[in-house]
C-alpha cells in the first residue's frame, strides 16, 4: 500500500510541479498576448492593412472611362512633378518654420512662469492657457473666422472706429499668418502642459545646489530647467512637425470664408482629400499621401538628427 502510495507521490510530485511551472509560464505568455491582442487586431485592421492597401492602390490608375490600369510608379512620378503638391509642401514647411518656434517659445515661457511659483492664481492661468486645446478645432476655426470677418468682424469694426483700414486677415498674403495664429492659440497650452510636466520631474536637489551656488531664478531657469527640458521639447517639436505637415482642419474650415485663397491644393493633405473625393482620383491620392508620409519621416528625422548632434557637442 505504502509503496504504491509513495510511488504515486513520487510519480505525481514532479509532474505536478512541472505542470504548475508550465502553467505559470504559459499562463504568463498567454495573458500577455491576450492583453496585447485587442490592440494588435485594431492596429493591423486599421493601420497596417489600410496602409498596405493604399500602397497597392497607389500603383494603379482607375479612370471613369476605361477602368483600372497598372501604372507602376506613374502616380509617384506625377506627384513629384505636380506643382500644386510641391507648392503645398513648401507652404506647410514655411508654416512649420515660423509657427512652431513662436508657439514653443510661448509655451516654454508659460511653463517656466507657472513652475517658478511666483505666479498668482497659477492654476487658473494654467487652465486658461490650456483651455483652447479643449475647444474642437472646428469650433475654433468658426470662432476665428467670425473674428477675422472683413466687414463686420470685431477687429474690422475696431479698426474702423480708430479710422484705420480694416485688417485683411483672409487675403492670400495674410492667410498663412492667420492660420498660424489659430494653430498657436489651439496648441500652445497643450505644449505647455508637456513642458510643465517635464519640469516637475526635475530633481529638487539640483535647484538646491544652484541656490547654494548663488543662482537666481533666471539663472536657474536658463542653466538647469531649460537643459532638463530638452527631451520634452524634442517631443513637442516632433509632434509639431507631424501636425504642421498634416495641416487640414483649420484650412478646410477657413476655406468657406476665403475659398479663393485656400484652394484645394493649399496644404498637401487638403490636396489628397480633394483628389480622392472631388476628382475621384483615389489612386493618385494614395500616392500623394505616401509621399507626404515620406516627407514627414524625413523632416522628423532631420529634427532629431540636428538636435541630438547639438546636444552632444
Amino acid at each position, binding site marked *: 500500500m505504502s509503496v504504491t502510495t509513495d510511488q504515486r507521490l513520487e510519480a505525481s510530485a514532479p509532474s505536478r510541479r512541472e505542470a504548475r511551472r508550465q502553467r505559470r509560464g504559459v499562463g504568463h505568455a498567454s495573458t500577455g498576448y491576450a492583453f496585447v491582442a485587442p490592440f494588435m487586431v485594431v492596429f493591423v485592421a486599421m493601420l497596417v492593412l489600410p496602409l498596405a492597401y493604399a500602397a497597392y492602390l497607389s500603383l494603379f490608375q482607375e479612370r471613369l*472611362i476605361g477602368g483600372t490600369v497598372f501604372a507602376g510608379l506613374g502616380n509617384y512620378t506625377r506627384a513629384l512633378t505636380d506643382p500644386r503638391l510641391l507648392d503645398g509642401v513648401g507652404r506647410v514647411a514655411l508654416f512649420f518654420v515660423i509657427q512652431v518656434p513662436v508657439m514653443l517659445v510661448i509655451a516654454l515661457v508659460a511653463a517656466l512662469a507657472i513652475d517658478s511659483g511666483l505666479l498668482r492664481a497659477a492654476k487658473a492661468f494654467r487652465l486658461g492657457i490650456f483651455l483652447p486645446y479643449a475647444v474642437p*478645432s472646428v469650433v475654433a476655426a468658426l470662432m476665428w473666422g467670425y473674428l477675422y*470677418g472683413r*466687414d463686420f468682424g470685431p477687429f474690422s469694426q475696431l479698426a474702423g472706429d480708430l479710422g484705420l483700414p480694416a485688417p485683411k486677415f483672409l487675403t492670400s498674403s495674410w492667410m498663412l499668418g492667420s492660420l498660424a495664429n489659430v494653430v498657436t492659440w489651439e496648441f500652445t497650452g497643450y505644449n505647455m502642459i508637456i513642458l510643465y510636466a517635464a519640469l516637475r520631474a526635475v530633481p529638487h536637489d539640483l535647484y538646491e545646489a544652484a541656490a547654494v551656488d548663488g543662482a537666481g531664478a533666471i539663472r536657474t531657469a536658463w542653466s538647469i530647467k531649460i537643459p532638463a527640458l530638452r527631451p520634452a521639447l524634442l517631443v513637442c517639436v516632433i509632434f509639431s512637425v507631424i501636425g504642421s505637415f498634416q495641416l487640414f482642419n483649420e484650412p478646410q474650415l477657413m476655406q468657406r470664408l*476665403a475659398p*479663393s485663397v485656400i484652394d484645394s491644393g493649399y496644404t498637401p*493633405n487638403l490636396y489628397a482629400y480633394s483628389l480622392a473625393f472631388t476628382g475621384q482620383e483615389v489612386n493618385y491620392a494614395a500616392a500623394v499621401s505616401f509621399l507626404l508620409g515620406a516627407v514627414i519621416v524625413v523632416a522628423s528625422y532631420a529634427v532629431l538628427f540636428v538636435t541630438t548632434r547639438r546636444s552632444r557637442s
Partner: protein
Amino acid sequence: MFINRIRRRTSAGTALVLAAALVLAACGGGGGGSASGGASTAQTVSQSDIDKAMSTPTELTFWTWVPNIQQEVNLFEKKYPAIKVKVVNAGQGTPQYTKLRTALKAGTGFPDAVQIEFQYIPTFALTKSLMDLRPYGAEALKDKFVPWTWQQVVGSGGQVWAVPQDSGPMGMLYRKDIFDKYGIAVPKTWDEFAAAARKLHAADPNVSMTNLAQSQAGVWFGLLWQAGVKPFETPSTDSVKVNLNGDGSKKLATYWGGLIKDGVVSADADFNDAWYQALNRGKYATWLTAAWGPVFLAGSAKATAGKWRAAPLPQWQAGQNASGNWGGSTTAVVQGTKNPIAAAKLAEFINTDPASTKMFATQQFLFPVTKALLADSSYVDQPLPFYGGQPVNKLFAGISDTVDTKFQWPPFLDQAVNDWNETVGKSFANKSDTNAALDQWQDRITKYAQNQGFKVNQ
C-alpha cells in the same frame, strides 16, 4: 498626448479613412449592381409584379436631407402598409454623395432610394449607381412635371434616372427700400442692371448692387443657363463636349468680371457668417437667387422683413424672357437595391402624390416641379409678408416656364465646380481677368476629362 495625435490624425489622415473604405470595397467586390442593371433596362415590370412587391413586407432605406420628410413618407406608408421606410439623413449634398460612393464601392450599406440634386445625376449615372426607372412605369410620369425638370432626369439613352422633387428657377430678390432711396427702377435688362450698379456704387460705396459669390459655381451655371450657353454636352457615355470659354461664356465673363473689377459688385463667399450679416445689414441691394431663395432669405435676414421684393432676372435683350436654374433635387433608386419596385414607387409617390407634393411646398418650402401644384392657386397666390405681401411663388411659377430644357451637366461635376472655384471664382476674388480664368477652367477640365478616359471635343 495620444489624444492629440489621434485627433489630428482622424481629421488629417484621410488616406487611412479612404483606404479603410476601399478595403471594404475589395471585400465586397463592387456590389451586385451590374448584374441587375442590364436586365432591368430591357423588360417592363408587370402590374402584378408591382402589386405583389407592394404587398410584401419590405423595409426600405431612404437617404435624404429634407427636414421632416417623415411626414411625406408617412403618407406612402399609409398607402402601402406592407412597406416600411427608414429615413436616414446622411448629410446634405456633397457629404452624402461621398458616403454613397463609399457604400457603393463597398457593395454594402447603401440605401434603396436616395436624394440626388439635378446637377449630380450624370455623375452618378456614369458610375452606374442609379437605376433606370422606365421598367417601373416612370415614363408615364413625364407629363406631370415641368418639362425642363423632367429633361434633367433623362439620360442620353432615354433612361429615367430619378423623379424630380424640387427645383430652383432663378429670379432676382431686391431691396425695394434701397432702390427707392437712390431712385433705381427695377432693371429689366443686364445693361440696366449694370447702370444701376454703377449709380448705386457712386451714391453709396458701402452698398453693392449684388454679390456674385466667388464660391458659388451654381449661380454661374444658372447664369450660363439663362444666357443659352451649353457648357457641357454628353453625346455618348464615353465622350463629353466641353465649352466653357465660348462666346456666350466670354460675354458673361466680360460683364461680371468688369463689374467686380470696378468694385460695383462684390464677390464675397456666400452662406457663411459674414454673408448672413451682410444681408441683414443691407450690404447687398439684390440677391440673384433661385425659387427656394425667398423663404430661405426670410429665415436668414429677419432684420430686413418687409423690405424685399421679387422680380425676374434681368435679360440680355429687352423683351426676352429666359431664366436658368440653381439647385433642386430628385429622388433616385440606387443600383443594386434588393427592392427596386418598392423604392421606385416611393420615389414616384412622394413626388407626385398631390398631398405629398403640397406638403413639400408648404411645409418644407421646396419649390414645386409638378404642373398641378404650380397651377394651384392656394399655393401660388399665397402672399408672403417678408416681401410686402407679394405672391412671390406666382412669380417663380411663371419663371419656371422660361427655363431652357436643354441644359446638361457634366459627368464629373465635383471637379468642374472645384476648378471653377480655383479659376473663375479666384478671378472674382483677385479682381483679375475673368476671361483668362475661363480659358484656364476650360484647360483644366479638358485635361481632367482626357485623363479620366473621356473623348473630349470642344
